[in-house]
């Protein structure tokens, strides 16, 4: 009897202390969701590999960021969150935060300060567009063109896309109204400051579609960021819209005869969110990862692999040369001063309201 009692008490003591130990532990495996391609590769090199080397954590990569909101909603309904950290753009992050699907972050306690002591909330500044969003990079959607197929004068303005007389040939645009309609209005003579007010009205929307009608037969409509670089490389289009990092990869890494049109670029933020409802260990691990992956040096490191601007002010001076090619990355950033002519910042509020309506109109127009 005594012996049994001793065994039972020792066993239960061991279990309880084991549980307490596990509770303060962080999980040793995490799933990080991102976009795939060159972008994921830059995150792998700059964040995942150093972090795994330091802590021994296994990082599983999932390339589902393009459907992140839908999947997080479904996971929330099924009460089974399988993701630990998710890379999303600013607008989906705001949506997820408003719906309570993303965890709120306190920048000053959960993000690393700058090396000179500036707290994270000041270092990120205006980039902190939402309480749940941890900004990572500034990227932009802009145009690239084939230098050998556009004739003698290189295009320098976004309105050259609409100029089929001077630049005959096919173009490629994303098959969504976002950015496409703004460019159409800009090149139809609307002042940059009035574009969103014009787009709110029926007349403005029709005006944008009418302008797009002038080039509709010459446009190949694409749905993903990797389509335009392929079309440019094949010579199927002479000008095409895609993300600036993909164009950098096409021009500098794959040495294709392509150049960029920075005029009229639309800048957007991309960053991390941590899903709400994670267990304590997974949340602790996710926060630990975020603290590492968004500090000043790490964000500058990512710029060594892809031409997206780091979101922290303190990282900008640390942006150096490309890891493999050795070229200076600063002029290739969307935020470089020489690239900011007529640059737009994505208008999240407008598209949150009007995206569905305008998409229905846009798709109906496309199908005609």
């Amino acid at each position, binding site marked *: 009897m005594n012996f049994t009692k001793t065994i039972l008490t020792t066993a239960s003591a061991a279990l309880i202390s084991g549980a307490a130990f596990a509770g303060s532990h962080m999980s040793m495996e995490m799933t990080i969701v991102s976009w795939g391609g060159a972008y994921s590769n830059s995150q792998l090199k700059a964040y995942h590999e150093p972090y795994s080397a330091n802590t021994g954590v296994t990082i599983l990569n999932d390339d589902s960021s393009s459907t992140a909101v839908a999947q997080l909603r479904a996971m929330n309904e099924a009460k089974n969150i399988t993701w630990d950290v998710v890379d999303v753009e600013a607008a989906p992050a705001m949506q997820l935060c408003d719906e309570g699907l993303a965890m709120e972050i306190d920048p000053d306690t959960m993000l690393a300060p700058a090396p000179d002591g500036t707290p994270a909330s000041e270092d990120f500044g205006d980039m902190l567009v939402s309480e749940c969003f941890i900004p990572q990079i500034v990227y932009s959607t802009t145009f690239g063109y084939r230098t050998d197929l556009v004739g003698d004068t290189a295009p320098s303005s976004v309105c050259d896309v609409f100029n089929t007389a001077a630049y005959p040939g096919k173009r490629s645009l994303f098959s969504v109204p976002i950015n496409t309609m703004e460019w159409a209005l800009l090149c139809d003579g609307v002042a940059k400051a009035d574009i969103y007010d014009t787009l709110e009205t029926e007349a403005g929307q029709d005006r944008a579609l009418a302008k797009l009608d002038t080039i509709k037969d010459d446009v190949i409509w694409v749905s993903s960021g990797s389509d335009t670089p392929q079309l440019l490389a094949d010579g199927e289009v002479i000008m095409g819209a895609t993300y600036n990092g993909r164009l950098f990869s096409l021009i500098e890494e794959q040495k294709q005869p392509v150049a960029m049109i920075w005029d009229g670029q639309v800048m957007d933020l991309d960053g991390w969110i941590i899903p709400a409802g994670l267990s304590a260990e997974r949340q602790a691990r996710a926060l630990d990862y975020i603290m590492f992956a968004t500090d000043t040096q790490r964000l500058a490191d990512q710029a060594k692999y892809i031409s997206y601007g780091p979101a922290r002010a303190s990282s900008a001076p640390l942006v150096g040369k490309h890891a493999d090619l050795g070229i200076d990355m600063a002029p290739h950033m969307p935020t470089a001063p020489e690239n900011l002519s007529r640059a737009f910042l994505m208008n999240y509020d407008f598209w949150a*309201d009007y995206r569905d309506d305008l998409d229905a109109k846009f798709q109906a127009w496309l*199908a005609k």
Partner: protein
Amino acid sequence: MVSNSTDKILLSADGVPLKKSLNRSLRQQKIRALLLISPLLIFIIVAFIMPIISMLSRSVENDLVSQTLPETVQALQSWDALSGQLPEEAVYAAFAIDIKNAAKAKVHTKVGLRLNYEKSGIASLFKKTARKAKKWDIETDGPFKEKLIDVHDGWSSIEVWQTIKTHSPAYTSGYFLNAVDMRKTVQGAEFQPDDKTILIKLFKRTFVMSLVITFSCILLGYPVAWLLANLPMRQANFLMILVLLPFWTSLLVRTSAWKVMLQQQGVINDVLVQLSLVADDARLIMINNETGTIVAMTHILLPFMILPMYSVMQTIPPSYLRAAKSLGATNWTAFWRVYFPQSVPGIGAGSILVFILAIGYYITPEIVGGTKGVFISNRIAYHILKSLNWGLAAALGTILLVAVLVLYWTYDKIVGIDNVKLGG
């Protein structure tokens, strides 16, 4: 031994009426059979049928509005939506209570997004109002009508209140109406404005193109199946391997390969230009339109047509053809009047398979269809993944399912499902 009596009832050996004991043993057989398949049945019901029903039922569910804004929905019942006047203060007060609670529970954006599908602008309306309403004190801060209109002038728009009222019932026909290019308004069902009607066009296009794909699969697949069924064994086996080989390649890879072939600067156009059949500046446009979709999907769905046809053709005795020819028929007559009718069941099986697969296809039209060759499934994918309008996606899916079932029933009436054979 069955005891024969002069009575009309037959009895079995243990004295029980034969009919009863027969029924009992038949029932036992059925129960035994049911028990044997019950694991599979339960699995199919739980893992397949229940989730599908749960998803499809979203096409009529609309309890989001009445659950998130219960007081407002209640108060709006006494408001006449067609009166041309804004609701009373009581409605605004009820809404203030609701939006404050919703803001605390972080459910206000979901309902704002849901109503935004019906009227643009409501999403940001709810967002801005909730931000302010979080700090209100319901007891002391009234009256709320001016307060709400102060926060955002959308609250002085009758259409906003009409939208909330129209879409407050727990079950709604709104999604199904949207799925056929109509919408639910206070006055009842109305057609969408012309510049937004796309779904009916897509439905038609999906069905027409699927029919075209089915027919081209029949045309291209029949000779291959014939060869497979009539060549000597060794050559037939080799051909069969060639037919099945594409299944080893990923679907995306096959579709992307068509991109390389069909592009304006692609392989086919390059060859045609080299052979001087096509001028260099007038290259054929075979991709990012219907042609691209039809070609790529025919290629992908061809094995599904060939295999059923082949397995039926294998069972046709070659002696019939020989007999027809020996009776004086020409090659064509012998084929058309003797061989072909016997192979129809195989064509039927292949056609059903290919048609149903083609209707639901998403990836291939997305990649090679451009904007003229996309199917309704691309729209369903958009509503599930991007706009998160799961009600509309479920309604579109339900319509597609019902249409396929109706077509299947029609096919049964015309051709007869018993005439569909998969061989043997």
